[in-house]
């Protein structure tokens, strides 16, 4: 490790209603790989966005190469030598590798683009990095791993001195990861400072020199990777005080019947051999880190995406679910994490959204019985305490929590007994949150069964009767609420198998 190249001190950043970063610090030295860790929403991405000028900080100081700097844009950061390799690759699949690497700064001969020169420069770059990629190949033909190498090569071609890797291994195979690590070690030897964001504990131990941990937007500490054990790091990540009392024991009777059973579900890379059971009146929490495959699993069960193999049983009967229609027919309702895109039709009214899944029950011959529709919608507005001036109000004018209630109403009107809540309180303010919790508890009391996917540890511990933990498309743990602790959930969530 060499001298310090980048320090961020006392960084503050607030968004309306949220304090995303609170006095956060980070120090990167030349020739070190510095891990940045934390749960979902801990502030890692926000911190990196502040660094590269996507967000402006409210307070704090960034020092780069011994000078205080403020990067006005990612481009300015790039020009100064600070570069992010994003998790989602920003590549243009129709262009060649070389064209991608030099996009925005094409080598020209007069007024025309000089492809030959770019190919030559890219070839030289790859040689320097010991990567075997043909610069004239079309980007779309490369594997994700190779594309990532191109992204890295692009970062290096900018003469970067600090490179941020945002979950670089999420999409890579074992051998590609080895190759990536070789390159990272190479970069380290060339005195480049590297920030490495990852959830994978094993990788952290293998490749990084120091670890900085964030939790709920606050700086927890920095330790040498050598000296830290896995447990230490997990402790730092989860060691928060939980204000709400977590559930201490399950509310579900031991002999409660199984309403939904999933056996060996497979669908692509994100759902591998997932099996679990949901009992009547149970809230089954699905915990895990971003990209664990929980939403994907839910969507496959609901028929929104295709299943490769596996079996689903509803009330002991084997069912075939090929489309959301099939799922709904079997009494399964899905409340998406992205309400605006998948949950509600924003330009329609509360009443119209409420009856969306069960319109056939509101028909008088050929025509929709709008009176009955309004009546039922009003009934559910009252039942769920949805705050709306009326059922003729457009859903777009409702707050997030109330939109969520409209979606709940949609499934209750359809009489669904199995409800999948995907991040039920995302983007919902604190008051509405506890109302949604109350509502979920009411629903299970009435005999409904709930799968709750949540990335908030406190939510999982407070609501679930049982918890399934996933990591990278596999189920890596299952426990009763009485045995669940933040630590053992996090252990399972970072277990790579």
């Amino acid at each position, binding site marked *: 490790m060499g001298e310090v190249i980048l320090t961020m001190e006392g960084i503050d950043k607030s968004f309306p209603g949220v304090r995303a970063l609170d006095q956060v610090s980070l120090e990167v030295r030349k020739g070190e790989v510095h891990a940045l860790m934390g749960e979902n929403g801990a502030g890692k991405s926000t911190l990196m966005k502040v660094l590269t000028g996507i967000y402006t900080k409210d307070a704090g100081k960034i020092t780069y190469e011994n000078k205080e700097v403020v990067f006005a844009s990612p481009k300015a950061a790039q020009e100064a030598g600070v570069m992010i390799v994003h998790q989602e690759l920003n590549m243009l699949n129709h262009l060649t590798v070389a064209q991608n690497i030099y996009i925005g700064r094409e080598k020209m001969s007069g007024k025309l683009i000089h492809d030959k020169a770019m190919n030559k420069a890219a070839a030289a770059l790859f040689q320097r990095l010991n990567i075997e990629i043909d610069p004239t190949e079309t980007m779309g033909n490369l594997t994700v791993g190779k594309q990532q190498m191109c992204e890295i090569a692009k970062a290096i071609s900018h003469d970067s001195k600090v490179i941020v890797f945002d979950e670089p291994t999420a999409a890579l195979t074992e051998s590609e990861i080895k190759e990536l690590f070789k390159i990272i070690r190479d970069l380290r030897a060339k005195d480049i400072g590297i920030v490495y964001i990852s959830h994978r504990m094993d990788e952290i131990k293998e490749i990084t020199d120091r670890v900085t941990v964030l939790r709920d937007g606050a700086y927890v500490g920095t330790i040498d990777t050598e000296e830290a054990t896995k447990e230490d790091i997990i402790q730092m990540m989860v060691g928060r005080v939980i204000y709400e009392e977590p559930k201490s024991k399950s509310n579900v009777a031991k002999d409660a019947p199984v309403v939904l059973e999933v056996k060996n579900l497979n669908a692509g890379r994100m759902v591998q051999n997932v099996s679990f059971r949901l009992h009547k009146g149970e809230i089954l929490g699905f915990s895990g880190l971003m990209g664990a495959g929980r939403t994907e699993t839910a969507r496959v069960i609901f028929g929104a995406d295709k299943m490769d193999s596996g079996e689903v049983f509803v009330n002991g009967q084997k069912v075939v679910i090929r489309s959301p229609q099939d799922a709904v027919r079997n009494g399964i309702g899905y409340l998406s994490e992205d309400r605006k895109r998948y949950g509600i039709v924003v330009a329609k009214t509360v009443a119209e959204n409420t009856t969306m899944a069960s319109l056939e029950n509101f028909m008088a011959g050929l*025509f929709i019985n709008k009176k009955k529709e309004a009546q039922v919608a009003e009934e559910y507005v009252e039942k769920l305490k949805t705050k709306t001036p009326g059922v003729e109000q457009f859903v777009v004018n409702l707050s997030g929590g109330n939109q969520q209630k409209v979606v709940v109403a949609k499934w209750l009107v359809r009489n669904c007994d199995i409800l999948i809540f995907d991040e039920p309180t995302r983007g919902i303010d604190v008051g509405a949150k506890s109302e949604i919790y109350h509502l979920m508890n009411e629903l299970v009391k009435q005999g409904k069964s709930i799968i709750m996917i949540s990335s908030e540890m406190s939510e999982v511990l407070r609501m679930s009767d049982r918890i399934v933990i996933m990591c990278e498309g596999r189920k890596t743990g299952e426990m009763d609420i009485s045995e669940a602790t933040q630590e053992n959930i996090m252990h399972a969530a970072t277990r790579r198998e």
Partner: protein
Amino acid sequence: MKKISNNRFVKAVGFNRILLCFVLILLYFLFTILVHVIQGQNFISLNRIFSALNYAYFMGLLSLGVTFVIATGGIDFSIGPVMYCAALISGYLLTANGWPLLLCLLVSILVGSLFGMLNGYLVAYWNLPSFITSMASMMLARGVGSVFTRTQSVSWPQAAAENGQYRMLVRIVTESGTTIPTGLFVLILISIICAIILNKTKAGRYILCIGSNKEAVRLSGVNVKRWEMLAYIICGTLAGMAAILFVGAYTTVQPGLGDTFNNEAIAGSVMGGTAMSGGVASIGGTFLGVMIIALLQEGILAMGFQRDYQFVITGIIVLVAVYVNVRSQKRKN
């Protein structure tokens, strides 16, 4: 402005539609003056009105049909040629093959429905973009029509001739010589049916919701493909009906034409307040939009200008209408 849009009457009828009425009346007066100044003729005459209505009948059905497709967020560029194709095939069967009149009228509607089915199937089930799909079926319709009649034009019988009863769908001339514009009643009746379908039935509800957020509707367990396809079938069927009103007004159909009607029909729908992005549509607005288009065409002809001038003016009006449309959508968000 705020005050006006809060008025009960304005709210019930819709600001947009009242505006269209004003535009319609304004245009009428404008043409009256211009035709008088340029041609020294009187624009206010029953003949002129009937002539404009003749254009409005078939254009109205095309425009109503495409409104359903636009409501789903799609587009159909094949309606004009499909109408021609339907008129050619059924007319050829009537005049050359001597099929009974009623059957020929059914064939006309059926041809339209089949093209609608084709478009709808490809768009909904194969996920092809509606723009390209309807372009292809536009060419297909033009070609099929020509091939079927061996590139001959088809002349449907005159009102007094044998098998001329179909013209009673457009107008009836009584013995005393007064003309009853029955086509207007047909257009109004079909408009009302369309309004009912769009606003009161499951089909209309889902068509509008699909245009607004297809994925959310699919995830509500709705068979979105079926309803999306239905919108195209309604559109095609109305194009097949439009063919009957077209020959009822003009009798002669030439192969290889019909493209220009697409744009005017879409223009009528958009002017009427149908959002190109889907999810919002108005049958009453479409009706008024078509009336404006028909008046424009008649007025410009009356001024002694060529049809090309009409395209220039329609083009400008469509641009203004789309601009207003997009602006008001933005304000809503």
